């Protein structure tokens, strides 16, 4: 992965986002062009700058790094011709230059990369690459010079809190599992990543799978487990493939299996693919699912540390948590807890998506403000509309309005305003987002995903959804807001697991911070963001329409009529407000009011 033989290296980001943007075509074009040259070509994972995929990095001797974005196969050929064969970087397409005193501001500025330290840098399918950057050093150190207690103490001292949502001390969790009676003991990695809008776990698994395996090894050593499971969602086929490969490579090299590194510690790992149920991200449901049953949560205690998988002591942690662990053991707790706030140490990875200019993965020290993440790191909104809010923590989380975006991201500050850290999904919204529609979206999700075991969650979320549906249909009742609040309160108090206990949050926070939008829907029968189909009307702006007829070909109900080169007209009775016409019109002649 370095320029070992003195010749340049070209890297192409080929995790899901790179592939989705056409990265394979770029890779093939580069491979053809570089066939007889000394330049080596390799794949890497995701550096996090998804908004500029496909990404190509040119690494020159002397550790000069040049990163190109939005690369097409044609552009790739020109980069090779000009930069690699003639020594002239193609300035217009450069995103980042490092190592030669360049004046291009780095788009990674403001970030501190611990979890993402290798992402986009090493080849995730090569164990040698991982070893060459110090990989498997943490487990060597732990086995060679630390007792199990010392490992646990180190993780407690680091202040690391679980990154899967609840934020419980990782070291303490390990201590409970270590002290629990019973054997065997299990380690589970929660890679279910259920928040529909979060993708850091996928990206880490696709870009640096060994760091997660190594974190699991350390945990297994600490609690005395000899078997582990990775529970990965089935929607992530590339992550599953790379994990399987990583496991078999680690087994070949003796990092997994019997008597690891000559010690008396043995550990092996299996992958279980999830089968598409959000509730299975909840730890007790997840274990039911590994046991082959329907994934229904049970009440705790007993906690998994006492009675987990098959009733045995089990420690379950999130992907990002494990990726932190291997760094902490290698670099020391002090280095880690020097970052962050008093009660939230280290860094957090956020998946920036929605209406943000630089969407992708970012990793920042805990305690940065939401504003800084959205504007300094994320580049502000992607539209010319104003920043309205962020949704943090997905369906369990809350909505933070722009007026509170100077809040620091740490566990306590976020919960004080009704939001949560969650797993790190951060969805940026601009003025075009309807907050009632957003609440309806999440309630639709949670009521659909409710496992049905307890009544408050099963029936309560359905009732809330019905109310939100009638509000967005323009049929809301005057007391609907109060009804929603009442239902929310009982669901939160009476539900069995975290799914139900947190399901009302998106509705509650949008009511709290955007009440006037609810009132507009209920009282004025209008949708201020012009999103809710029942409350809007589509029209063709006659003076802008060129009569190109394109929209007529896309209208699913044949609601648009008009002669060629003549302004078209929408038949309101036939229009289903799908917005396809607006999407395809090149002249912006479709208006919504």
């Amino acid at each position, binding site marked *: 992965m370095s320029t070992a033989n003195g010749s340049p290296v070209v890297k192409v980001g080929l995790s899901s986002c790179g592939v989705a943007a056409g990265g394979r075509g770029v890779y093939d074009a580069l491979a053809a062009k570089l066939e007889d040259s000394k330049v080596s070509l390799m794949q890497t994972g995701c550096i996090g700058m998804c908004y500029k995929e496909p990404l190509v990095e040119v690494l020159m001797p002397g550790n000069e790094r040049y990163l190109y974005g939005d690369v097409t196969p044609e552009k790739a050929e020109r980069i090779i011709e000009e930069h690699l064969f003639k020594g002239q970087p193609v300035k217009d397409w450069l995103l980042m230059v490092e190592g030669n005193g360049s004046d291009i501001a780095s788009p990674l500025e403001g970030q501190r990369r611990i979890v993402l330290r290798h992402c986009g840098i090493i080849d995730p399918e090569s164990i040698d690459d991982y070893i060459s950057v110090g990989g498997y050093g943490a487990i060597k150190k732990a086995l060679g010079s630390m007792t199990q207690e010392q490992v646990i103490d180190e993780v407690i001292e680091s202040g690391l809190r679980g990154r899967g949502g609840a934020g419980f001390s990782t070291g303490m969790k390990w201590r409970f599992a270590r002290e629990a009676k019973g054997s065997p003991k299990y380690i589970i990695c929660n890679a279910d990543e259920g928040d529909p*809008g979060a993708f850091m776990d996928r990206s880490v698994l696709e870009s640096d799978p060994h760091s997660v395996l190594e974190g699991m090894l350390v945990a297994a050593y600490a609690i005395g487990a000899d078997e582990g499971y990775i529970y990965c969602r089935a929607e992530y086929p590339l992550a599953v493939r790379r994990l399987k490969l990583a496991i078999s490579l680690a087994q070949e090299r003796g990092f997994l299996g019997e008597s690891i590194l000559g010690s008396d510690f043995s550990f092996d790992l299996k992958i279980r693919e999830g*089968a598409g149920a959000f509730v299975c991200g909840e730890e007790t449901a997840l274990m039911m699912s590994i046991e082959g049953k*329907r994934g229904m949560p049970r009440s705790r205690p007993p906690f998994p540390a006492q009675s987990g998988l098959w009733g045995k002591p089990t420690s379950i942690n999130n992907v990002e948590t494990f990726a932190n662990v291997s760094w902490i053991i290698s670099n020391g707790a002090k280095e880690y807890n020097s970052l962050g706030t008093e009660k939230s140490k280290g860094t957090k990875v956020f998946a920036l998506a*929605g209406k943000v200019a630089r969407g992708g993965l970012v990793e920042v020290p805990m305690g940065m403000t939401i504003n800084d993440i959205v504007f300094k790191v994320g580049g502000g909104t992607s539209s010319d509309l104003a920043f309205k809010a962020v949704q943090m923590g997905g369906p369990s989380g809350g909505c933070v309005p722009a007026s509170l975006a100077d809040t620091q991201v740490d566990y306590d500050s976020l919960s004080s305003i009704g939001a949560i850290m969650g797993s790190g999904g951060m969805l940026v919204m601009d003025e075009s987002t309807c907050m009632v529609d957003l609440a309806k979206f999440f309630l639709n999700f949670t009521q659909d995903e409710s496992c049905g075991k307890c009544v408050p969650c099963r029936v309560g979320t359905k009732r809330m959804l019905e109310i939100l549906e009638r509000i967005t249909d323009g049929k809301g009742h005057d007391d609907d807001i109060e009804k929603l609040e009442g239902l929310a309160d009982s669901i939160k108090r009476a539900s069995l697991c975290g799914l139900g206990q947190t399901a009302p949050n998106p509705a509650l926070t949008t009511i709290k911070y955007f009440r006037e939008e609810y009132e507009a829907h209920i009282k004025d029968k209008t949708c201020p963001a012009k999103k809710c189909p029942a409350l809007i009307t589509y029209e063709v702006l006659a003076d802008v329409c060129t009569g190109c007829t394109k929209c007529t070909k896309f209208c*699913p109900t044949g609601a648009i009529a008009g002669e060629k080169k003549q302004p078209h007209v929408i038949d309101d009775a036939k229009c289903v407000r*799908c917005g396809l016409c607006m999407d395809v019109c090149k002249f912006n002649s479709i208006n919504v009011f």
Partner: protein
Amino acid sequence: MVTDTKTREAPSFAVIDAIVHKHNAEPGSVIPILQEIQDEYGYVPVVAIDRIAKITGITNGEVYGTATFYNMFRLEPLGENLVKVCHGTACHLAGAERIAEAIALEVGAKEGETSADGKFTIEQVACLGCCSSAPALMINEEIYGRLTSESVRKVLKKCACGNGDGA
């Protein structure tokens, strides 16, 4: 790269039994067994449910309950290409519903349906993990992002006559 393992053959006891025994006929392995059977046939045939129950010794109802609990399992045969349209938060905000409309217009099948020519089965999923490339969808195992109502029709056209890379 496309893992097109879906055979058109009728379910056979020999194949099903082999999969169940590969997992040592363990009741705890019902989910991976169902996954492998679905990989083989593109869906979980009813005869497979009976067979799994018989060999592993758990009840039909339990196997059926597991198969229907998880969104991923299909009890109906699948078209040649499986299109998973993302309706996660980012894709919802980016107009996932318009993408679904455009797909219906192109192939004549709504979410949950298979097109009349058997080429496409359209499904709805919660998130593909490519939220910064929203709206996104997955065809077989390939993800396509930053779609528009127009580009999605092109992707499907291309797919109907062979598979390509990237949108």
